[in-house]
């Protein structure tokens, strides 16, 4: 760990989240929160289905896909047949189980996680184009959203030395 550090430390991460599944949204939130906890600036841009994570009606109801997800397993490790994933309620059940497991590791629901990130100075943005596409208004968004931006405006926030853009 204490190898000689020749590189300049990371100063800022700009994370773009375009999908609304548990794994995409949580990967984004964990990375953003992990950054601010290390004193690294974090800006997050939610676009397309990723907007669900900051839409008040949807944010705490996100799911993981039980169909078309080859990494999905039964508890115990057996393969999870796709046909089972199609049954009504299965996706909701699996998603609830995943959230329970995360809660055990002290990983909070989406709204609380966003609050943790902004408490550390992180900023949360919504994509204007996707908002127009899904006919969403600013009032539909989580109240502490820093703003609705075009991608050009978001890039404007991504300047500076040792900044990385991450697409989840």
């Amino acid at each position, binding site marked *: *760990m204490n190898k000689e550090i020749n590189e300049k430390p990371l100063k800022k991460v700009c994370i773009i989240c375009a999908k609304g599944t548990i794994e995409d949204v949580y990967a984004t939130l*964990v990375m953003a929160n*992990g950054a601010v*906890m290390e004193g690294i600036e974090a800006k997050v841009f939610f676009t397309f289905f990723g907007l669900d994570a900051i839409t008040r009606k949807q944010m705490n109801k996100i799911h993981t896909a039980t169909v078309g997800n080859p990494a999905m397993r039964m508890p115990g490790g057996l393969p999870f047949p796709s046909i089972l994933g199609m049954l009504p309620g299965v996706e909701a059940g699996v998603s609830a189980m995943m959230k329970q497991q995360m809660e055990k*590791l002290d990983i*909070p629901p989406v709204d*609380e996680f966003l609050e*943790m990130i902004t*408490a550390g*100075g992180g900023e949360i943005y919504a994509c204007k184009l996707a908002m127009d596409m899904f006919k969403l208004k600013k009032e539909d968004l989580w109240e502490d959203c820093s703003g609705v931006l075009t991608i050009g405006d978001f890039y404007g926030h991504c300047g500076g030395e040792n900044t990385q853009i991450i697409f989840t």
Partner: protein
Amino acid sequence: MVQKTIAGNTVDVDQEGYLENPEQWTKEIAGEIANEIGIDLTDKHFEVIDYLREQHAQGTQLTIRKVGKSGITDIKGLYKLFPGGPLKYSSKIAGIPKPSSCV
């Protein structure tokens, strides 16, 4: 393991300077580690530190979320007390190992 003299005490530390043995911790050591980081300790800092040490002794895996729910301070307050490293710096000053949680 490395030995380091902090505030006149010889203590065992890891390569990043976290105390290996919380028993070797004193308030003076906390003060000196905080100084190195650039934090002036207040009573509020010590409330957080005492909480962290207690929780660590009980074997709890610490997260900023737990500290935020401890009733001592909220998460925003924790960032104000330990800027740039709410859990990392507070743990280092509290003489407990580097946090192993991602939250």
